[in-house]
């Protein structure tokens, strides 16, 4: 409150007071922890403790009879030994497989997993030959996840980076709270997909359920099929040439390019009618009233 006296504040209108007290969005931006990508800052590319793994060193692990903790600590042990390609056999719906891997690794899961598969990862390339349960790839930071069959609900919840791809159909609330990265679905997605999405892109080649993109702040959703209904403040936008080029590149990369191309995709973005960031929170109002 430097530079403004109480007497001055009393003279001001509400609008002027907000500005004088530094509560405008522009005055608050300097407080972000967001760091821009810098190609020269190589020390940021890997974690200092990340093991040095060789992709050509391959090993297999049979998950039968093992607990999730045993499997996950075994993966870490193998990475410490320099194995860069790890194949998990017989997962049979186990939960939380391969979570929290923070370095490069080729992880191949031969079968289906339960909830929270390969969540919280930063770097690995994962291929899952079966189906995944709820919250696959939750909060992933970077890397790729490729799922051959279907996925459950909250697919890629709060994902921040990387590519999360499902060839089949996914459940409801796909990409809820998405903060970056790319989610690609070969089939359909359920209700409330992209709910409260904040950044990043979501591509659905099939149909989308009701309330698509409800309360999304930002980010882009592309849908190839029909949209049952749009959520609050989700609006259709023009599909630009840049979008088409990006879609073609991404979908071709993962072998999901539709025969009819990408011109039929519908683009959904935030209508920004809910952007009321300049309004004060009740506690802030109290400060100056």
């Amino acid at each position: 409150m430097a530079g403004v006296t109480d007497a001055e504040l009393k003279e001001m209108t509400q609008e002027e007071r907000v500005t004088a007290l530094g509560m405008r969005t522009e005055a608050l931006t300097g407080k972000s922890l967001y760091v821009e990508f810098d190609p020269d800052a190589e020390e940021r590319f890997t974690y200092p403790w990340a093991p040095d793994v060789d992709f050509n060193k391959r090993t297999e692990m049979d998950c039968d009879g093992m607990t999730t903790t045993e499997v996950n600590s075994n993966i870490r042990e193998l990475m410490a030994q320099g194995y860069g390609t790890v194949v998990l056999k017989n997962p049979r719906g186990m939960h939380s497989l391969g979570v929290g891997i923070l370095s490069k690794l080729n992880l191949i899961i031969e079968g289906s997993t339960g909830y929270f598969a390969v969540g919280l990862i930063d770097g690995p390339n994962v291929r899952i030959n079966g189906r995944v349960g709820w919250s696959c790839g939750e909060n992933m930071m970077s890397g790729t996840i490729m799922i051959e069959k279907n996925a459950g609900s909250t697919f890629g919840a709060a994902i921040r980076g990387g590519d999360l791809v499902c060839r089949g159909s996914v459940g409801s609330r796909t990409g809820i709270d998405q903060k970056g990265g790319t989610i690609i679905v070969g089939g359909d997605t359920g209700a409330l997909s992209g709910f409260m999405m904040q950044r990043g892109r979501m591509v659905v080649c099939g149909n989308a359920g009701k309330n698509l993109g409800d309360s999304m702040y930002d980010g882009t959703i592309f849908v190839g099929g029909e949209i049952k209904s749009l959520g609050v403040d989700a609006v259709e936008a023009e599909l630009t040439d840049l979008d088409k080029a990006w879609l073609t590149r991404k979908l071709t990369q993962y072998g999901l390019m539709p025969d009819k191309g990408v011109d039929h995709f519908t683009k959904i973005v935030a209508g920004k009618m809910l952007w009321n960031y300049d309004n004060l929170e009740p506690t802030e109002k109290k400060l100056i009233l």
Partner: protein
Amino acid sequence: MCGIAGLIHKGKSSSVGSEMTAMLQALKHRGPDSTGYAVYGTPTEGDYIMRLKVAEAEDMEKGRGIHQVIKDRIAEVEAILKEHGAKVKSKDAPREYSLRYVLNHKGDTGEMAAHIEETEGVEILSMGNGLELIKDLGDASVVSEAYGLNDFQGTHAIGHTRMATESDVDIKSAHPYWAFPYNDVSVVHNGQITNYWIMRREMERKGHRFMSNCDSELLAVYTAHNLANGVSLEDSLRQSIEEIDGVFTYLVATKDQLGMAKDTMAAKPLVLYESDDLIAMASEEVAIRAILPEEIDTYDPYDEEVRVWQA
């Protein structure tokens, strides 16, 4: 967070008892408080299987007097059976407080059931030609062992592992629920019903009885009411999505059908596997894989999805 499971074999009998035990054991982490089964054997016309409890599991620890009380209650139940002209063909007691009768009866079973439940502490868990409803405290292996379920042969089954959130840890709040007094209908549910009291009072005004404060019982009563009024199972499931508020996924089994319904938000999980001769579903894939270890294709049903399968 409860776990539900269901399976139905098309056109053949199988050891559904041990299959359901394997599924429910795999779901134990979703709720270790109690486990329940509704298994459907081969129905015999005119013969009714009645499962009932005459005391709660916890009553057994409240002093030795309970043994005499149980004997008295059983005697009273049997007197009522006689009064209604039901012939007892066989009688088992897997637990002191839990009994199974095979009855031959020609009259109205609903009226008889209502009369039996007038006895203090007595609750009929199920009545039907094919249905056997078993529920008790403990995990699937404990309940299955105590009630000899591993040898049970039948066409379909639903099951439940319960984590008590809305009501007590006891048998009367455990699932599945029999759709009293509608023979052979049972329900398991995972979720919370938010207009429970409004719907319950509506059902009570229509003359239905509630034994517990568990919201899942409402689904059983609601389904029974609809079926009694000639509504098909599929229509009842569809209608429930409109009329019942909250988040829920539930399964209903009848003498020869198994149905599922998911609420409008799709907030509660269900994984579905369908093949030509077997349909299996559970809250988590791990339960389906307990009986189908080979690689299979499964999917999540969407919001407001309703399915019914025929045995």
